[in-house]
């Protein structure tokens, strides 16, 4: 069982987001970067599946050198090898083509991603890779069990879930509660240092969108603390006009 897990390198969920260079760049001062929380679920499930079936886990990131500590962390959590496609992830389409190109090089039984990256929140790369490779893509997946060459999944939909059966290989965008996040232990951290982290050049690929200027939301007005339920109901009715 060979599993490819695609991970993003994103600001920690508690980060205050700011921009610089005339609002054209993320201000990285003081920002801590982590494995995307949904990618972390994908990786955690991959580690569990490997415990069941053996095989190898490859983690992949399309990014510049700064993302290597994040890949090392994925190795510490339990991936066997890491690949960094040395390119700035210009847009989802560019990233999807890079992932598809790597996926074609080795036959993976399963490609796991997060349901969405928490920086651009597209939730798009898995479907694009699926279409490029001609494989089913299923997202957001909250449960994934293997049964021989098939898998049984639960996909979250608005107000419930769908249960799905699909043959390997396929692509899944993962979310909780597919697995519990794994924290690297000492042994993992030590062994991660000697695991292979390969840096490869990007394949030729086009972009279809172009990011221009960033903007922060308008600051919120001061909260009105009210003393009674009746006062609240009046405000909701007459001021907010939502009742």
């Amino acid at each position, binding site marked *: 069982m060979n599993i490819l897990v695609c991970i993003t390198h994103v600001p920690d*969920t*508690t980060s205050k987001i700011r921009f610089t260079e005339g609002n054209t760049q993320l201000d990285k001062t003081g920002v801590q970067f982590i494995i995307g*929380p949904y990618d972390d679920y994908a990786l955690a499930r991959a580690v569990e599946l490997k415990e069941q079936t053996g095989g190898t886990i490859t983690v992949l990131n399309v990014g510049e050198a700064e993302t290597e500590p994040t890949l090392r962390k994925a190795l510490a959590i339990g991936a066997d090898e890491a690949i960094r496609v040395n390119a700035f992830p210009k847009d*989802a*389409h560019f990233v*999807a083509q890079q992932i598809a190109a790597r996926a074609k090089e080795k036959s993976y039984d399963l490609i796991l991603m997060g349901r969405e990256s*928490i920086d651009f*929140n*597209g*939730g*798009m790369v*898995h*479907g*694009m890779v*699926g*279409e*490029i490779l001609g494989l*089913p*893509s*299923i*997202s*957001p997946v*909250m449960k994934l069990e293997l049964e021989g060459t098939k898998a049984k999944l639960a996909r*979250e*939909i*608005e*107000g*419930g*879930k*769908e249960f*799905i059966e*699909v*043959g390997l290989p*396929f692509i899944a965008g993962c*979310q*909780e509660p597919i697995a519990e996040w794994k924290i690297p232990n000492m042994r993992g951290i030590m062994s991660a240092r000697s695991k292979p982290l390969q840096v490869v050049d990007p394949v030729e690929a086009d972009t*279809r*969108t172009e*990011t*221009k*200027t*960033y*903007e*922060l*939301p308008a600051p*919120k*007005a001061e*909260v*009105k*603390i*009210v*003393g009674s*339920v*009746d006062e*609240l*109901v009046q405000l*909701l009715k007459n001021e*907010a006009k*939502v*009742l």
Partner: protein
Amino acid sequence: MSILVYIEQDQGKIKSSSLEAVSYAAALSEKSGDKVNVLGCGTIEDADWNQLGKAGADAIYHVADERLNSGVIQAHAHIIAQVFAKVDASILVLAKSALGDAVASRLAIKLNAGLVSNVVGLPDMNAGFVVKRSIFTGKAFVETAIPAENKILAIKKNTQPIKTDGEEVSVESLTVDLPESVFAARITEVEKASGEVLLPEADIVVSGGRGLNGPENWGMIEGLAEVLQAARGCSKPVSDLGWRPHHEHVGQTGVKVAPSLYIAIAISGAIQHLAGVNGSRNIVVINKDPEAPFFKAADYGIVGDAFDIVPKLTEAIKALK
């Protein structure tokens, strides 16, 4: 050239997020002059179709195949691509949703299109085609240009008022060839609460947190939700503890909501929870701790015990109605 809007149904009813998508396309067409074609798949109640004309559709197509009542991703993508070509479209508009995202991404490849998700406004067409989208889970926006000829826009909920003054349009039935291969991922069962307001679609959300102590105390949340015809939400620990189903969990790792009113009861307001509610137009916080961080993100707040306040609030709203 024209615009194609893909709409979704839930238990036979057209989703309000889809009516927003049609209204968005109608507003876009006022700028560009493109015709607004709408495609619906699966079973949709007869009485529901007339909302599409009112929302701004110029032509409506229906693929009635019952297999499309559920979210067979590849099948939906396959049909949309065919209809996109048939109506000579260059722009596809759909609502951001579990199915919308999944099909839009496959279509970006099929249609050679530039795709932007989480769109929050109409495009600026003066210099190319530039749309604003929400990023960093609602913490920021970015202007994004789509130079590609074909474009796909996945619209974030609550960014476009639903238009209701359009003309009635008749529905044209289409039969589309669906190869077996698009059903490779087979849906074996669907589990869904019926008759409930869908959380991401809801106009009002009543949400409870760990401060409510246990699932046995959810009766009052349900009571309040009922008088408001609201959807129910919760914080992550509440769904982690199994007090409420996972699909009710709001936040960074859960559902992102954008109602006109979000009522947060006994939720502290951790930044990851706020990430799921920052699209709300009005936020009410009920918390016994005056220092709870949620108050900083709220429009209205009451400091006090939820077990005392919520039943009173339910009664007061009942009295009003």
